[in-house]
């Protein structure tokens, strides 16, 4: 069915599993922070798949066995892009929470003033 060695198979299945776990977390949530974490887990799963794919170069019977530097470079680029997006998402989340908190305290203030009038 498959030509992959057991080690590669193990890591590939793990990478797929991480994708699945992240996907579940992203759909179910419920808090936004957890969905952001879930996205990062999906990303980690995909990058792990890429690392394993790059590792195939070592297992090869090629004349110059080495890992795939192109894939490694792609992963580094992808990691930076992912962390940038995460940072922006977290900044948006912080702003949202701050706005919510301000709203809450305003409501409480109105509540307290309410009976007095």
């Amino acid at each position, binding site marked *: 069915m498959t030509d992959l060695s057991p080690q590669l198979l193990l890591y590939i299945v793990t990478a797929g599993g991480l*994708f699945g776990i992240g996907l579940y977390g*992203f759909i179910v949530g419920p808090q*936004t922070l957890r*969905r*952001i974490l879930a*996205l990062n887990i*999906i*990303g980690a799963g*995909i990058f792990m*798949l*890429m690392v394993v*794919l790059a590792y195939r170069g070592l297992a090869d019977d090629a004349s110059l066995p080495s890992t795939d530097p*192109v*894939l490694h470079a*792609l992963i580094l*680029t*992808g990691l930076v*892009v992912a962390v*940038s*997006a995460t940072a*922006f*998402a977290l900044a*948006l*989340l912080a*702003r*949202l929470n701050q*706005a919510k908190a301000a709203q809450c305290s305003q409501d409480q203030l109105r509540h307290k003033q309410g009976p007095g009038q």
Partner: protein
Amino acid sequence: MMVVLLVLPLLSALFMLLWPRIAPLLALLTASVCSLVALQLLLLVSQQGSQQVLLAGWPSGLAISLEANSLSSLLILLTALLQLLVGLYAFATHRRDKLGAGFWPLSGMLQLGLTALWLSRDLFNLYVCLELLGIVAVALVSLSGDKAIKPALNYLLLSLFGSLCYLLGVAILYGAYGVLDITVLASQWQADLLSSTALLLMTLGLMLKAALWPLHGWLPAAHAAAPAPVSALLSALVVKGPLFILCLLWLQLAGATQVAAVAPWFAGCGLAALLLGGVSALRTPFAKNMVAYSTVAQLGYAMLALGLLLRFNQPLFAAALWLFVLAHALAKATCFLAVGEITATLGGKRISTLKGASQTMPLAMFAFAVAGGSLIGLPPSGGFLAKWALLQGLWLQGGQLFWLLVIVLATLLSAAYVFRAVVLAFNRADPVAPDFAPRILPQWLALLPALAVWAMALYSEPLLQLLKQEGL
């Protein structure tokens, strides 16, 4: 020439960050220069054929490949022109709308991202472009302040998820074939389980990012919350980026069996988008949401054309697809600018604000009506041209009565939501009083793309030829 088109927006955005005071001037200057260069590139491509470049001259496969064909250069020209127009509009209204200095560098980066995307023919480079586009779009939406944060965050998360699905597809394809260049990949393509899975994952991600039905849920909130010039850019250009990649994948890579399996689904999604998007646009009480839902519906046409193109392989459908994209970009820019101008001046978000607008703001309302005509597909307009190509293609295939009926129904729906606004505007009995004297310049600017979309009909023959031969 491609280098100029890529470097100029980037450099000007950087300078805008360093000296915020001269940002508007720099932005307008860059957009005009870029428009000229893009025009020159279009002429060059139409004379000498498509220009292919392997970056830095490294061997094929290792280098990132760029290609400027007539479609790409047309889209680059459209991007630069719309940037110029929206820049002018933003400059004319920035005191009132409190757009802030943040808008200018971001719009420069948006132009960079779009231009890079239209040119790139490398799967991973396209991923970076997609992420760039997604982040810059969200940053632009969040310019609106507190009310836009929630839709912006939702947009960002879904957009990230879409990119990750696309990236997984790229990883699988690279694992199987060991190349990223689309042209090289197409020559080695095998229609097996591996490539089908990768294609489906990438399609899922791209459909989410392009807000194609049924993954359009984030679009109305995000586009409606953004400031008017930003909504115009997002609706006109940004959602077309993923759509472009989607077409690239299915038209250049996918094998015959894969195409045959997926074509009816694309057409079906397009159909559902047309009908359901139209109904939502008819039902929403808010003016900007109506325009945003109309984007969902109009993207359905593009999807439908793509599905039919994959099914019948008829060049007329390719022309229809890209004519829809061009016409919709111009018409939607007008719609958002005009509606933004009207709602800002008359002070309200609901469609009922438009009451009597033909009296208080005749120019903006005229622009909206003209653009609406193109959305409906009234002759002679770009929208009509696209629809005509679609109908002609269907007619040539013969026996496609069902699709003809659906298109008529969708046309009626779009007519209904456009006329709902227009009829309200002509209700002059009790007009909504403007908060301040309407300004003329922004209204003229809003009218410009609408005029351009009607002018498209004049150049229908060369445009049709250009897009038919391209087919991507």
